């Protein structure tokens, strides 16, 4: 069954305010797609448009190729897991799961079968007669998943459902969600401000800022090859060095970074010579010994933190502060606060992005 979702040039306006700038996006059938962005970026608005709680001002939402314009929320083939789960507290666990089937007029015996099967899927067999309030946070989470899956949706919408859980449970639930997605083959659309969640679970991630989709890519591409300054600084840790582009040459550019001198990095076609730009280098790309094809930035260590598997350093340069991450084996006695070091990076690991680039 085609369970693709197509945001066909949608725009969402609330009065004068444009919550979603014109967006065109195809989410494939069976894909795990995440919208990642800070709060207020419009990601929940997108979810509300897909589920039918909001009707886009312009454009159309298509599910499985069918236009959803004018189709009310209760008639769409979508199912949502809410941030606060929104389980019905006055119903038992089984009644919660069976609610969607009850609405569809499924017989009691069939409903019971379905809820037993789903409880098994989420590893909570035999909890059907319990009250929702008797369950722990993680168990409630799984009931919410079971309830949403019971109606056999084509698209499952998840609105930051893990944010209320503690770290350990959150990591466990990530794996479980991924597993359920593989088993059911349903299209998952996941909303989060937590990049770890988005990167670990998703097939593709759409990074959003201020109502605009900044970049859509698989997690590795997103991390290695950000297309905008926003994506570069929002996804993962990054060091940004401001400067002015001097020259471009075969996908590489040279920048005048003031007191740090001339630095080079990869560049995207939208940057021109003379533009203000930012050179991004990830903390783990710095080396203490220079090799071939490396550039060096002199700096002074401000702080050293030993984290077990790795070290983090904060260093001051003539122009800016840098965060550095080294493997624990690179630790030496000379790495102390106040020591002078030279930080090197491979030219192809750095990326130069203009201030206002959009995809």
């Amino acid at each position: 069954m085609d369970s693709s979702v197509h945001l066909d040039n949608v725009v969402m306006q609330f009065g004068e305010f444009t919550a979603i700038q014109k967006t065109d996006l195809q989410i494939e059938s069976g894909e795990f797609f995440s919208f990642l962005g800070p709060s207020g970026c419009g990601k929940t608005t997108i979810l509300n448009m897909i589920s039918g709680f909001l009707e886009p001002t312009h454009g159309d939402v298509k599910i499985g190729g069918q236009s959803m314009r004018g189709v009310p929320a209760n008639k769409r083939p979508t199912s949502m897991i809410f941030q606060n789960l929104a389980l019905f507290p006055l119903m038992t666990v089984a009644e919660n799961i069976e609610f969607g089937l009850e609405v569809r007029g499924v017989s009691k015996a069939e409903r019971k079968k379905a809820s037993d099967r789903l409880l098994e899927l989420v590893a909570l067999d035999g909890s059907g007669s319990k009250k929702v309030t008797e369950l722990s946070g993680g168990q409630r989470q799984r009931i919410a998943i079971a309830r949403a899956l019971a109606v056999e949706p084509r698209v499952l919408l998840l609105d930051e459902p893990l944010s209320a859980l503690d770290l350990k449970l959150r990591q466990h639930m990530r794996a479980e969600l991924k597993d359920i997605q593989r088993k059911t083959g349903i299209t998952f659309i996941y909303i989060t401000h937590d990049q770890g969640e988005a990167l670990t679970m998703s097939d593709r991630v759409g990074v959003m800022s201020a109502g605009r989709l900044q970049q859509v890519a698989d997690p590795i591409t997103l991390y290695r090859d950000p297309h905008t300054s926003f994506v570069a600084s929002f996804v993962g840790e990054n060091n940004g060095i401001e400067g002015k582009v001097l020259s471009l040459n075969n996908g590489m550019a040279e920048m005048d970074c003031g007191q740090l001198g001339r630095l080079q990095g990869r560049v995207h076609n939208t940057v021109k010579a003379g533009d203000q730009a930012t050179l991004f280098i990830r903390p783990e790309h710095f080396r203490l010994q220079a090799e071939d094809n490396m550039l060096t930035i002199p700096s002074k260590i401000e702080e050293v933190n030993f984290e077990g598997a790795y070290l983090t350093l904060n260093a001051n340069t003539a122009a800016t502060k840098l965060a550095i991450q080294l493997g624990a084996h690179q630790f030496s006695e000379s790495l102390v606060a106040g020591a002078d070091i030279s930080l090197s990076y491979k030219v192809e690991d750095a990326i130069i992005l203009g201030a206002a680039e959009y995809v």
Partner: protein
Amino acid sequence: MFNQLKARFGSGLAVGVIGMIAIWIIAMVVLPQLLMVDYSFRPNLLPADIGGPKDVYSLVNYQTLFTNKIHLEIFFKTIWSSVLVTGLTLIVSYPIAFYLAKVATPQKAALCLVLLIIPFWINEILRTFAWYIILAYKGPLNALLLWLGFIHRPIRFLSGDGGVLIGMVYAYILFMIFPIYNAIESLDTNQIKAARNLGAGWIRTHWRVVIPHAKPGIATGCIMTFMLAAGSYAVPSILGSPGSRWFTQIIYNWFFEGGDWNQGAAYAFLLLVICIGFIALVMRVFKVGLGDIAK
């Protein structure tokens, strides 16, 4: 409670406050009621005979109701009509309460609340008289309906119970709206969205999610409306016709026209006891506990 007050305000003030409350409750509520209970079990005598050999306790005053067919009929009619008033008020109030709590923007909800409250600054008698005028045979409502062509000759709203029902629904609507509004407002809006998202239409969403949540509020509103309606005097005496008397009017007659306080007190207690019993029964049927209402 005394210790808490003492800790906060000192013993002098604590004794004062508790004392005043005690005087209020004992002297102005408990003692008069006890006096009325005492009255209701004694015969109505001339002043000279009070305390004499004829002044004995008996159930005669209570038996009167069950031997007087007309009074008994009015008694049950009062209970039934109060049920009707409660039901009608609930039907009118629930959509308003839901709109105020979940649909309207905060500004609109505030405006609506003000518009609902302002009429209640006017005395109940005056408001009821306004309805008397509106519902009159040659009144504006009939004129409007005639002009619109819905009816061909005026309706006698004020004969029978129609006028009384309309007047009471209007008089007690706020007592129904506010508890239901409070209850619905405390419902997480995501619950409604979740029900919609799982495919429920509006009726099922209300039946399975909103109403179960609002049940304590609905119960509170219904109890208040029912008690007020059963004990109402002004509305039936103004909007009722001779054929639609309310039991409170009979009680009034015993006290102030018959001059038989003993008989009146017995009737009043019968009404009170039956109303409380009826409410207890309804709460049992709908599985509402006292704790739910006190929330």
